[in-house]
């Protein structure tokens, strides 16, 4: 269970980073100086990217600290 949660956090973190990078932040394109290519598609997209980075490493803490469920 603990391993599964940690793995989910790692996958979720990487997924968030990828989504924020490719779909929520300002799109790639030319000219890069245009408003269409410099404003993020979703406000605070960079924060979502950072949250993804943090989530990945938090997975390690969960894996180590979360107590194993006792077998009945």
């Amino acid at each position, binding site marked *: 269970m603990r391993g599964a949660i940690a793995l989910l956090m790692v996958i979720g973190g990487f997924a968030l980073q990828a989504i*924020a990078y490719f779909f929520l932040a300002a799109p790639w394109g030319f000219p890069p100086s245009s408003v269409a290519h*410099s404003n993020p598609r979703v406000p605070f*997209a960079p924060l979502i990217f950072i949250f993804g*980075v*943090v989530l990945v*490493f938090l997975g*390690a803490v969960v894996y180590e600290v979360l107590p194993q469920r006792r077998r009945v």
Partner: protein
Amino acid sequence: MATRTQAEPLPYGIGRFGPLWAVTALVLLALIGLGSFAYTRQVMEGEIVTGMRDWGTMGGAPWGLYVGFIVYFVGVSFAGISVAALIRLMNLTHLRPLSRMAELLTVVSLILGAFSVIADVGQPLRAFVNLSRYARPQSPLFGTFTLVISGYLFASLVYLYLAGRRDAYLMSLRPSPFRWFYRAWAAGYQDTPEEQRRHSLTSFWLAIAILPLLITAHSTLGLVFGLQVGRPGWYSALQAPAFVILAGVSGVGLLLVIASIARRALAGGGGISLDALRWLGYFLLVLILAYLYFTIVEIMTGFYAGHEREQEIVRLMLWGRYGLVFWPSVGLLALPAGLLLLMAFFRWWNPPLLAVCGVLVNLAAIGKRYLIVVPSLTHGGLLPYGPGFYRPTWVEYSVIIGLLALGGLLYLLFAKIFPLTEVPETGKGG
């Protein structure tokens, strides 16, 4: 399972604040006070109190000492976590006592790096809000903030926290006023074989994850400069690898200093063997030689085939205004390289001399970081403006001194609350 050690006092002088410690802490607090005062002047009067001015018509440099120290602090952080990760991945058991010092060095230097960013921007709050709202994750500048400040700092904190749980558990078994803290840190850890196996697995994967993050983070910081096509002196494919190598030089150097002091100050040498210092010495030597090679190649390329402005910057560094920083910096790299070569040749590794080498390479790294940032801004523009001028003011010097003091105080405080090296199970090192 660990041996129970209830009756033993805390090891390595933890919890015992002597007069020397108190005096040092007071001096550091005074310096932090000076830095805080200078920063309040800057906040109240604006960046006009610094030596920074806009380039071009204002004839200045918008980046100066603060940015130089951002790069320096982030560079120092490199060695900490990379050494810790290498110890884990390559099973360098004789270096294990250095592991926590290295991790702590990373965390403290990244905190100082973040404070340097705050000191550099005129309106820190506005910077945080707008960076969070509008920044492009594709930008190297944002990469520096996310990868270095958030990812790298957070990863280092996680590494430090998880690696410290065993010692926190052992410390929580001994009577002390910090028992609640150790219990909270241990978070239920009891050093069972299952927990040891789990930690071994986690630290292995964390080390695997941190090493590429570390290379990316430092390269990204180099690319903030290296990708600026209109800025001779910066636009170079060597910027990113040179950043990584100089980061290693400053970080390993500082780790050598801290390890040498800890070896002398902690009972039983804190378990730090001469072998560990020798390994760091060899590592530092290789890094210095690599960086000197990079410097020679960079100078030769700029001077032999560089653009007119590129050649101007090289000329200024070799024989002009910046030669006063360049040559001492090169000398401060060459001298430790020579000393380390001699120590390696005669197989005579002297800890105080190694610490001196560590100090010298850090002074050199500060000089080189300054040279990376400033000359290209004052003399590297391609637009038809005259040369700029930059000289740091007392405000900038005071803020940086305050930050260095803060780093020292954080390190000193940690050393009095938590062991800097692994706690022996049998309670040695009291």
